[in-house]
């Protein structure tokens, strides 16, 4: 396993327990995945502010991959997946589906814009 995927796995292992207690804390951003789009596909966040990304799928298995922050998740239908995320750098960062899901898979992508409001 290379460094990138190790980092992803570690990130998920560390972050999944946080999701269970997220209701009391950080805001939850629900991201719906379906063939072949994320809704919303453009998400604006503040640098340093922790949010919970909650993923749901309405049709089949999708993936969420945000390589700039080594964040990834499997999104199974009927099983909402939560990931705690604290962006530590400002800018525009692409995310995409990384589980092949069909003809529009290559276009299934979005963008997280992190604003530095410090």
């Amino acid at each position: 396993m290379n460094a990138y995927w190790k980092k992803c796995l570690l990130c998920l292992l560390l972050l999944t327990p946080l999701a269970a207690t997220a209701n009391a804390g950080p805001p939850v951003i629900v991201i719906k995945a379906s063939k072949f789009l994320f809704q919303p596909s453009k998400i604006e966040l503040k640098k340093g502010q922790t949010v919970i990304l909650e993923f749901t799928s309405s049709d089949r298995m999708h993936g969420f991959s945000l390589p700039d922050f080594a964040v990834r998740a499997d999104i199974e239908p009927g099983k909402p997946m939560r990931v705690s995320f604290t962006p530590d750098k400002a800018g525009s960062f692409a995310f995409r589906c990384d589980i092949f899901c069909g003809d529009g898979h290559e276009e299934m992508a979005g963008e997280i814009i992190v604003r530095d409001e410090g």
Partner: protein
Amino acid sequence: MTHLIDRRKFLHLAGIGGGVAFVSGLGFDVFAADGLTDGLDFYFVQLSDTHWGFKGEDKNPDAAGTLQKAVAAVNALDKQPDFVVFTGDLTHTTDDAQERRRRMAEFKAIVSELKVKQVKFIPGEHDASLDKGEAYQAFFGDLHYSFNHKGIHFIALDNVSDPAAQLGQAQLDWLKVDLQALAANTPIVVLTHRPLFDLYAKWDWTTRDGQQAIDLLMAFENVVVFYGHIHQEHHHVTGHIPHHAAKSLIFPLPAPGSVPKRVPIPWDSAKPYNGLGFRNIEAYPWKNYRIEEKAIIKGETL
């Protein structure tokens, strides 16, 4: 240098002289003069990403005819290759299982027109991800396998039938066993679809556990990887292992990270088939490969 001249003569006779790219980091001339390869030189042809069944006038208005032109171009080579390999995405994906099989049957019928009858296939995600390779295996055989040819050990790896783009532990275990039988200096050619290394994760141009395969291969002195998926010629080295991506036969994609979105480069009617092609790979067992990129239409510039 005598051997080098002999090889040029060979290339001329084979009709593949001119425009040859030297891609080995090991030094052609050094190995050309070592005398180890006499009688063993051969070449094979790599075709990739044919996406049979794709429709998109702005990307390739001849989507229903490009594969046949590629087959004709290979058949027109003066000296025929020892074998031909298709490195994945033979067909364009469809959710319809019947249509998937129809496309595979059509593809197979078209490539049966190749003069060369030894044809190897590798699955791409468009062929095998949605049904875990079930239809692919019915038409083209095993998802991963190995074979020997004139002193080279060829290994075909499947990094697509798992839709998460990973080889998986079972295949890695198989690879480990396959390699155990080989001496450390055995020339090895790996054929696969996706890059085994992290070429550009933002566009998902990776294999999740590809590094584990590379780690196993690192113990061997003479390994080269030929792959597809990214629809363009690309060369990269991890450690001492070169990785060479092939052009597509349907539409080209932009260089990794060169544009914000990974979208096909539109068809240019002033330069039809621009960016498409296949390649001849001339193999000199004991350390060297010589790649020549070929246009689909004779006389087209690359």
